[in-house]
């Protein structure tokens, strides 16, 4: 007993004597623990960004399969018990039914294997994803736009427009589609286009639903264009899709073994944050597009920073979220007017995040499908936008849409181009246009925010 207490005393003395080094050891242990938890957080974030890219791959692979009549391969992207809700037709469950559903809509064969017959066009381009991964990393959602070029040679040519809302799950490390809700907005004959569509009345289920009944009815009825229907957003109420890491300053690390590891972690963490930011900005631009589609001006303006700016064509510059919202309102009343179509497709991103992950610039493209008062219109143009990382949430600090062309639907942009609107007099901009130019038939090279990505040469906005 005495021996033990003496020994304890000696131990205490020794520990007491080496107080300085003990505090150092305690400090080191705390640093080690902090580094460990950082590495764990980085592993989770890496898995999250990987999940976003894998889900983007799933959606795009689906498009390439349906394009060419590979409906069995497309159905294989679903879980065994996966479901596909088509318009108001109903819900089809399981890979076999999904395969048959796609085959019947696409004109393929259940017996002949992959392919399409002569003259069948089934292009269903899968665009503009907004991907949100759940906190546990095992499930996810996405919104997509499907732009269809459909038909049969010498028989029909049709435009398709739909919003897709997907649920995904990760099973044995593989991401799969668990449930797809396909909200058909219209299938419009090429002649006349979407602007000539009449409101549907009564049962508008497709002929496929009648020949091949679904496993369950849809939970919600809706009317397609020209009625105005907003497919529910899976990301309503969450900003997760447009968040990455808040800007951070890496402290000077001590030049010891642990310090060198901390510095390595700092570098990888920044690189990870920047790749995550690319996906958040993709989501942001896509989300903006979906709000514009439906005349949700307030929601769209809320994606701008407090002093963010907006400029479209020759509109001039609007500064601050309130003015941005007023500028957007020039396109129509909130929620759009009856029969109004306002599709702005967001594609072809070139996103460059700053080295410190605080700001970003991106070039994007929009094709525009409009209908107003029964008249259809095409548009196209290029964005050069800027973004700011606001405490981890990405926002527009500048949106600038350069119009390439406006054109009449019936005659085409080449035969009947329209000029851009001048700045509004009823709701004038805060600043005049930053660049005065004309749209097609004039052509303007939109200045590039980036140098040539391979040679590094600056690309002139004027001429070579």
């Amino acid at each position, binding site marked *: 007993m005495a021996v033990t207490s003496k020994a304890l005393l*000696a*131990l205490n003395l*020794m520990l007491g004597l080496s107080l300085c080094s003990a505090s150092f050891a305690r400090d080191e242990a705390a640093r080690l623990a902090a*580094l460990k938890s950082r*590495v764990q957080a980085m592993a989770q974030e*890496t898995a999250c960004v990987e999940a976003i*890219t894998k889900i983007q*791959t*799933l959606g*795009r*692979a689906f498009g390439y399969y349906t394009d*060419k009549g590979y409906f069995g*391969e497309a159905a*294989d*992207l*679903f879980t065994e018990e996966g479901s596909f809700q088509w318009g108001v037709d109903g819900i089809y469950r399981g890979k076999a039914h999904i395969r048959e559903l796609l085959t019947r809509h696409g004109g393929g*064969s259940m017996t*002949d294997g*992959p*392919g*399409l*017959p*002569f003259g069948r*066009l089934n292009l269903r*381009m*899968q665009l503009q994803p907004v991907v949100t991964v759940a906190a546990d990393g095992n499930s996810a959602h996405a919104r997509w736009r499907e732009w269809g*070029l459909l*038909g049969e*040679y010498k028989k*029909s*040519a049709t435009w398709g427009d739909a919003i897709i809302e997907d649920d995904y799950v990760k099973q044995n490390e*593989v*991401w799969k589609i668990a449930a797809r809700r396909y909200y058909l907005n219209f299938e419009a004959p*090429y002649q006349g286009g979407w602007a000539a569509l009449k409101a549907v009345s009564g049962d508008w289920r497709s002929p496929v639903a009648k020949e091949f009944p679904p496993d369950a009815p849809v939970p919600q009825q809706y009317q397609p264009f020209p009625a105005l229907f907003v497919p529910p957003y899976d990301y309503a109420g969450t900003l997760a899709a447009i968040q990455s890491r808040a800007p951070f300053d890496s402290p000077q690390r001590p030049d010891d*073994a642990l310090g060198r*590891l901390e510095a390595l972690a700092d570098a990888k963490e920044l*690189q*990870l944050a920047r*790749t995550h930011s690319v996906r958040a900005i993709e989501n942001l631009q896509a989300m903006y597009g979906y709000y514009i589609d439906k005349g949700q001006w307030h929601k769209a303006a809320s994606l701008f920073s407090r002093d963010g700016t907006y400029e479209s064509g020759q509109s001039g510059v609007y500064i601050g979220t309130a003015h941005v919202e007023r500028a957007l309102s020039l396109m129509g009343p909130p929620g759009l007017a009856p029969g109004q179509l306002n599709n702005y497709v967001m594609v*072809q*991103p*070139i996103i460059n995040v700053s080295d410190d992950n605080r700001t970003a610039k991106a070039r994007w*493209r929009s*094709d525009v499908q409009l209908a107003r008062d029964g008249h259809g219109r*095409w548009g196209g143009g290029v964005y050069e936008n800027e973004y700011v990382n606001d405490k981890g949430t990405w926002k527009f600090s500048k949106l600038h849409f350069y119009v390439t062309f406006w054109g009449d639907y019936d005659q*085409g*942009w*080449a035969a009947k181009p329209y000029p851009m609107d001048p700045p509004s007099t009823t709701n004038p901009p805060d600043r005049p246009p930053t660049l005065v130019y004309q749209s*097609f038939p004039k*052509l*303007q*090279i939109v200045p590039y925010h*980036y140098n*040539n*990505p*391979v*040679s590094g*040469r600056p*690309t002139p906005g004027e001429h*070579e």
Partner: protein
Amino acid sequence: MLKKTVMAFVSLWAAAAYAQGSQELQGLEQQLNSLGDRIQRLQDLTEVEIVQDAYGYYVDKAQWHYLADLFAPDATLEIGGKGVFLGRARVFEYMHVGLGPIGPRDGLLIDHQQFQCLPTINPDGVTAAVRCIAFVMSSGGWGHNYYEDKFVKINGVWQFQKLHGPFNMYSGYKVGWLDNTILNTYPEKWPPWPDLPPTVIYLTFPNYYIEPYHYPNPVTGRPMPPPSPRAGGEAFGRPPASQ
């Protein structure tokens, strides 16, 4: 004696703790490096897509010098049915001689939009592939083409190694793809002539051709099955009795 024992115990404990600590550091370093490899792949995916998308914007405005800059010196190009062009200089020639002078021409729209890019970084980390759609809105009407391109990373910079763009559907504007479709190109259609003949002979819409996917099915992992030999025929999918 007692003091000595305690001292020995403490120093043993410290040594063990130190050894455990350095082992832990090693483990963390390994974790960080393997995370670093995965993060690099994510960055590569973005960089490869940027090269593909930048290509599209340069075509829009006929900026052929800048477009050719995106190709490795020994890269190849094969578009439509024109055959294969070898090297960056011939990439430039294909565009400049074949498609027109440098710079945009008022009244001539050639928007060459890049949709639905699906990039894959190979395990070696220095080669990659992309499947992409070129959706064309031009003064002449519509175009829908695929790209199945290969990329190589040289001195840390991703660039085209092989651009392969099979045409799918071209049509005029008035009635679209109803019946106003345009045939594939062929080597002698317009200059310049190719260095090598086409690697594949196929017909565009209304015929059926599928350019092979560079990737397996992302869920099953199985390679792409070949299309039905009946695909593209009128008899495809019909029961034998109705043929």
